């Protein structure tokens, strides 16, 4: 299980980076970033996982029953919140760029340009 999680994480990261690097559209690029991010989630959940353990909620279990590591789940949860705002910001920027430049192709977009 653990090896599988690591492989999936590495694969997702690789695919995401490949997508970003070859991207021809900002929105596609933002999508690829979310793929990269999913790689870290899989990695973190894989690290915190334990065979035969339940969720770390002791509402209907006696304390002391085996549970997966709650710290990792807290990490993932916090990061989902942060990343949602980041994606929203990026999409808003992409929208504004499209209004001003008329394209979203990273090949044609650069902040400052030489004269002539």
């Amino acid at each position, binding site marked *: 299980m653990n090896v599988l999680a690591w492989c999936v994480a590495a694969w997702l990261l690789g695919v995401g980076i490949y997508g970003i690097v070859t*991207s021809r559209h900002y929105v596609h690029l933002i999508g690829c970033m979310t793929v990269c991010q999913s790689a*870290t989630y899989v990695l973190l959940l894989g690290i915190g996982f334990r065979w035969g353990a339940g969720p770390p909620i002791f509402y209907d279990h006696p304390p002391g029953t085996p549970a997966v590591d709650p710290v990792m789940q807290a990490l993932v949860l916090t*990061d989902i919140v942060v990343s949602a705002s980041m994606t929203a910001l990026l999409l808003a920027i992409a929208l*504004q*760029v499209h209004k001003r430049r008329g394209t979203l192709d990273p090949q044609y*977009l*650069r902040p*400052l340009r030489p004269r002539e």
Partner: protein
Amino acid sequence: MMALAHQLTPLAALLPLGVAFLLLALSHWLPPRTADVTSLIVAMGLVALCGWLALESLQGPIVHWFGAWTPAVSGKPGVILGIAFSVDPASAAVAAFCALLFAGSFVFAWGYFDKVHAHFHILMLLFLAAMIGFCLTRDLFNLFVWFELMGIAAFALTAYPLGKSSLEGAFNFTVTNALGSFLMLAGVGLLYARTGTLDFVTMGRVIASHPPDPVVAGGFCLVATALLTKAAIVPFHMWLSDAHAVAPSPVSVIFSGVMVSLGLFGLLKLVAIVFAGDPRVMMLVHVGLFWLGVSTAVVGGLMAWAQRHLKRLLAFSTIAHLGIMLIAVASVSTIGTEGFLVYLVGHGLVKGTLFMIAGILLARFNSVDEIELYGEERSLWPAGIAMGLAGLLLGGLPWGLLHDATDSVHAGSHGVAGALAIIVGTALTGAAVLRATGRIFLRWSGAPTVERIAPTEREREKGDRPLWLMLLPCVVFLAFTLLPTSLAESFVHSAATGVVSRVIPHEGGGTLAAAIMFALTILIPAASLLRRRPTRKFARGAVEAETAPFYALHVLHSGRVTDYVVWMMVGLAVLAGWLRFGW
């Protein structure tokens, strides 16, 4: 007093956060200048609070466990449930310095953002809270959260003017730094997997007591990639010149002045506290990061010299100086840390001043292109004097904080490569600023060569603020930079010892290096400003040969975010390869 300091520690981060939320809630009802006044008072208050904490912590670090979740609560040794702020003199002093730069920036931006209610100030206060939290925390995940918050505030502030360039610059900035923070989160996960804790000190103890572990080394690689991306070290540096050149100038003051150097400060703390027990990682830091610092100083210096857009020039100059700071960090020694801390402050003050002067030019003439502005600005002579002085300080004027700091960095780094990189980086950036000063304020022209092909753009910033108000923070910052370091020598020493207690043998000062550096800073712009347009065939050939390497550098800094990500991955591969094969 110590008990009071314990109580007040969380306030350093909570005060700006709380005020930001209040301003956001009330922004539509508040009278126009309230946000300016409130945020200025908060920033000044934080300077006082963090400065006082720095002095208090001289007797020993102040550790505040949030919600009283001290290590004792878990009842098992080595199991830590809480999150703590740990105040040592260096961290608190850096936090106070952040607040000082914010105060200067708030004065400079007085009335700048009238149209947008208090949103600018809210973002800035969030930004400040994130920086202070980043300095004071001693929990790795907490560090990551402050790092992200710092990022988000910075991304939004860059995109703020909603111009074409600022949007694209912000996009590049966001993508590269967000990718960095994903890698950091993965690194945090790996380190937690091996050490079972997120508390710096406990992690350091666990790592030191186990044999070197590839997972720990991998975790370091990922975390270092994120911090080096924030600190714009070659080859992770591409985003900086975009973002700093297009952000509103009061924001660029913060970006260049302290945000990027905080990346290196975080790295230094992690290396010193967490990874000091792992010989492989320390080897990477001593050798690998040293060479990254050397190349950063050289590349940044060359690129700064080849710019015509003043803000972009300053951005590359920041890259060069970050390379010099990384050389200091890579020595992981007390003397190097002393140099780094003073350099951080001196560089922040000078760079803040220069960005404010660029802002003054933008406000008055809607351009920061040194060739376009040639000889226009005689009426602004006080700004010209400040800019010339700042250029001299940047280029190694043998006086003041930056000079003393460079001496310590020299002393901490052995070998010729480090000394040469420091000379090249310092002299070229100082020379570039002086060349721009000569063109803009003194009508000295010289035929432009390498800078002619550099990217540039006209832009507009709100221009009806009084000149004296914009110059006031510049003058105060320059006055601080001119203070002799000896006033605070014992404080700096104990602050550095509090972070890194490794003493290495060193000889006092590189007097010769300092002299060469300053001579070059004067001679290079003088030669450039006296140049004539090349008419003879031979002269044209010489100019072409001179321009070619710069042209190649310009092509590499393409402005495309996809290229930047490729360079980041190359950098990550270099770090990982270094760890694996250790050449």
